[in-house]
């Protein structure tokens, strides 16, 4: 009797705390969303209430401007290219790390694993010089290739440990049927590895989409800016127009949040497993 009431009381307080924390997360975003529908006067005088009148011009002017869609497109292009390249290259390497014995294997694997310790910030300056010498500045490859390279450690680690769980009998059967290693890799192993591939793809996609430092230094030409760079530049340009900046930021959040709604489980699972293995 009293335990049931205790449970109810406890649940009540749990909910209260959860709602408070949830508010902590949601309120700034709500502030942004609603603020975008106000003009700056309303923001000063009428901060908490709903906009009155609703000012859609901030949102509509951004949605109809190439200053918004071009960075979106660039980000999407670069993210997809990075993921395709990274997953292909990393799965090939993870395959031989997992299924073959050769001299120096553990050493090479450790080298890649140590790559987790190399932050972008350390390499960005010489990387910039290198890219300049290779004439890769202002080219999407100047972002795609380094992003793939820096994504290799995490991806190889996750994929290798997944590939090791594939039983040897599958491979033996394929070999007996006359399959080449590449054939086995492409037609059997990869399809079997779909969950792991999905996980690393999602992680790499988010990392590429949100990358700021690299596109910032690689692209001096505004037509190649990615979304984070675009957001920052927009804020710099319209610093006093708070409402407008809020609208841009909120619109910039939409792809990430939409993607999150779809891929949340992959993301969370991938991070939890990556952290425990790292």
């Amino acid at each position, binding site marked *: 009797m009293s335990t049931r009431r205790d449970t109810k009381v406890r649940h009540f307080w*749990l*909910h209260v*705390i*959860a709602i408070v924390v*949830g508010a902590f*997360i949601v309120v*700034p975003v709500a*502030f*942004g969303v609603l*603020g975008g529908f106000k003009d700056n006067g309303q923001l000063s005088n009428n*901060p*908490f209430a709903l906009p009155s009148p609703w000012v859609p011009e901030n949102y509509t002017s951004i949605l109809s401007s190439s200053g918004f869609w071009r960075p979106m497109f660039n980000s999407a292009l670069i993210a997809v290219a990075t993921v395709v390249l990274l997953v*292909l*290259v990393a799965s*090939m*390497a993870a*395959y031989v790390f997992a*299924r*073959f*014995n*050769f*001299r*120096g294997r553990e050493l090479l694997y450790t*080298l890649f694993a140590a*790559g987790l*310790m190399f*932050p972008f*910030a*350390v*390499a*960005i*300056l*010489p*990387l910039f*010089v*290198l890219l300049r010498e290779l004439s890769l500045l202002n080219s999407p490859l100047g972002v795609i*290739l380094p992003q793939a390279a820096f994504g*290799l450690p995490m991806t190889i680690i996750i994929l290798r440990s997944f590939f090791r*769980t594939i039983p*040897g009998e599958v*491979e*033996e059967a394929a*070999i007996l049927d006359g399959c080449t290693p590449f054939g086995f890799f492409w037609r059997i192993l990869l399809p079997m590895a779909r969950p792991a591939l999905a996980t690393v793809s999602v992680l790499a996609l988010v990392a590429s989409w*949100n*990358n*700021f*430092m690299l596109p910032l*230094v690689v692209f001096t030409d505004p037509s190649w800016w990615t979304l*984070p760079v675009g957001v920052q530049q927009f*804020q710099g340009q319209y610093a006093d127009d*708070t409402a407008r*900046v809020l609208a841009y*930021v909120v619109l*910039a*959040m939409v792809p*990430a*949040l939409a993607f999150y709604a779809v891929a*949340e489980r992959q993301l969370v699972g991938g991070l*939890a497993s990556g952290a425990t293995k*790292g």
Partner: protein
Amino acid sequence: MKTTTQGPEGQLPAPTSHRTATRGSARRGPAPEQPRPRVEGSLRRRRRLDKLTVALFLAPAMALFVLLVVGPIALAIYTSLFKWNGFGGLPEDFVGLDNFRRLLEDDIFIGDLKRGLILVLLSIFVQLPVALGLALLLNQPMRGRAFYRVVFFAPYVLSEVITAVLFTMVFSPNQGLANQMMSALGLENLQQEWLANTSTVLYALFFVISWKYFGLHMILYLAGRQSIPKELTEAALTDGAGTWQVFRHITLPLLGPTIRISIFLSIIGAIQLFDMVWVLTGGGPIHSSETMAVTMFQYGFRRSEVGYASAISVAMFLISLVFALLYQRFVMRRDIEGAITTMREKR
């Protein structure tokens, strides 16, 4: 590359042994007969094919990694020994360790280290306990639990840039949410120029960092908590232990590895922090929110002092490396050893 007969670390079964020319290796079934010339030939071909496969499959990853990760880091170490403006091929003005001497006397850099330490301490003593508490909370059966989890983790997928721009507006002196809330609550005297005041800016930065990342730590703790067998806590409760005692003597110790990983990620993150600071404050006012990465960026990309900036990069690299090695060796060693003994026992 010579193929050997040794299996990997002994935790998982070795890859298929058909590839290795063994006569007596551990293999199920009857002992193999003496291979005839035809079979031997095909085994040799198979081994050559294997070597080729390994080489081909590894080549792209090695090329990318060595050229774009290892190369730049080696280049950073090299250029840190020069005074260079970044143009015209390679540096020529060799100055040895001068850049590093200058680093140790540079107030800004020393300040970066101090600020980094403050952020780390705040993370460990404020952010992590909150994340842990929430994880334990969300571990209870309650309605809407999955929904809360999704909401709490959402900021993680946003870029630091977007978060920083949003909070620049939130902390804006006149129209920002923070000050508006203060005045609504009658706390006008607490209103600040949050990002322009040297004494509040670091804490505002920490607030934004927490907003974005506490969900990550919460997810880690949730995963760790869920791997603790329920029987343990249930047994303790039936034996009369109070909730706090269960937490202190069972949950907390068993969460040890997760906590250590969470702290590790926090510290590494603090060392590399750039995007958020750059967009939120640019390092200001007067360097009071600057981090090592921001300082490096200023010197390298804005002031063309590439040699000195490289020295900062190398310092960051060394700090990360030394920290990671020491941490793995002293703090995580128990966890790794524990994992290995468990695997051995399982076999």
